[in-house]
């Protein structure tokens, strides 16, 4: 075990020195657009390494990452909202103890749709809510969208890309179309929703942002914002 601990530390240390090297390299060749893609990916992998130190009781057993917008079921087991939503869509039982998941847990989750703090964040990604307004994408989906978006900007000159790609949310494939700025579940192409990308981080409650990934902002917080 001592060995594996050391090797973990080693990896972490390496990634830090890599980070510095990468910064140097970045300042030297900012014009090279290819490097920007590399940079985005490196940024993401740095995030991943940092998050690895997640205490067991904060870890989602499904994605094995820190629980995002955690939802605790009546049986007492906690998962990310989007993770357990994916399970509900398929098996309708808790992934750990197989107790039935009551519908209301998924359909009307408690208000934990607050945006997570994130350093250095520059853009917001939203999708249209069914009944008006916008939902912000969940953090991990948003990061993936941004990477795709930036790589598309870079590759645009070659014009090989049609601006469409597939992301998996709750285990379901969604087609995202940057040319039309829409998304739809791959098996339901006629139910598309608009999406939008905005620079800067809008205040919560602005522009009818209702929450994150279908989870409303807690009512009390919304009042504060107003």
């Amino acid at each position: 075990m001592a060995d594996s601990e050391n090797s973990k530390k080693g990896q972490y240390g390496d990634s830090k020195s890599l980070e510095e090297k990468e910064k140097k390299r970045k300042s030297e060749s900012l014009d090279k657009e290819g490097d920007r893609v590399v940079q985005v990916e490196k940024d993401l992998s740095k995030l991943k390494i940092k998050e690895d130190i997640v205490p067991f009781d904060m870890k989602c057993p499904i994605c094995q990452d820190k629980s995002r917008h955690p939802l605790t079921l009546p049986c007492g087991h906690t998962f990310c909202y989007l993770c357990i939503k994916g399970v509900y869509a398929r098996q309708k039982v808790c992934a750990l103890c197989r107790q039935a998941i009551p519908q209301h847990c998924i359909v009307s989750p408690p208000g934990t749709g607050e945006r997570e703090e994130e350093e250095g964040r520059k853009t917001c990604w939203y999708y249209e809510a069914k009944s008006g307004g916008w939902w912000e994408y969940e953090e991990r989906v948003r990061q993936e969208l941004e990477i795709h978006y930036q790589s598309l900007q870079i590759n645009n000159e070659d014009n090989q890309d049609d601006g469409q790609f597939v992301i998996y949310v709750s285990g379901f494939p969604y087609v995202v179309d940057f040319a039309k700025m829409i998304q739809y579940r791959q098996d339901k192409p006629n139910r598309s929703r608009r999406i939008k990308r905005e620079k800067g981080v809008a205040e919560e409650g602005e522009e009818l942002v209702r929450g994150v990934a279908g989870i409303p902002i807690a009512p009390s917080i919304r009042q504060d914002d107003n």
Partner: protein
Amino acid sequence: MAGLPKRILKETQRLLTDPVQGINATPDEQNARYFHVVVAGPKDSPFEGGTFKLELFLPEEYPMAPPKVRFMTKIYHPNIDKLGRICLDILKDKWSPALQIRTVLLSIQALLSAPNPDDPLANDVADAWKTNEHLAIQTGEESFLYMYFIFTSLLYFTRFCLLFNNFS
């Protein structure tokens, strides 16, 4: 471009750095969702001394959908058909996204010792998750889980001999 989900990266990393006793799983060089697996025949089973090749594939829906696993080595076993397909409930309707590649492979290894068990993982996903995580932190070994499987193996051993004789 999308890359592998973090969970798959972490599982792969741990399979390589902290392998399960008697199980070797290596990702394919071309396709990181495809694993070449070698399972050693469990001790005190008719398969002791043998090595069995399997293929394991993680579909895009993984972990919401189970991995697809198949024996490549021909094997005579009541729960494995001629094409190497495995009859194991956690690979079908009893799949839980809290199970992992390593727990699935442990389960298959246990199946070699004890055909047709009520798979312990199907009933105790929560324990497997806890055990798996805590052992990873404390000792980096699966010894407890492994002993548990050996124990269940022994329980089913007598029954297995009968079944196995009938089958062949």
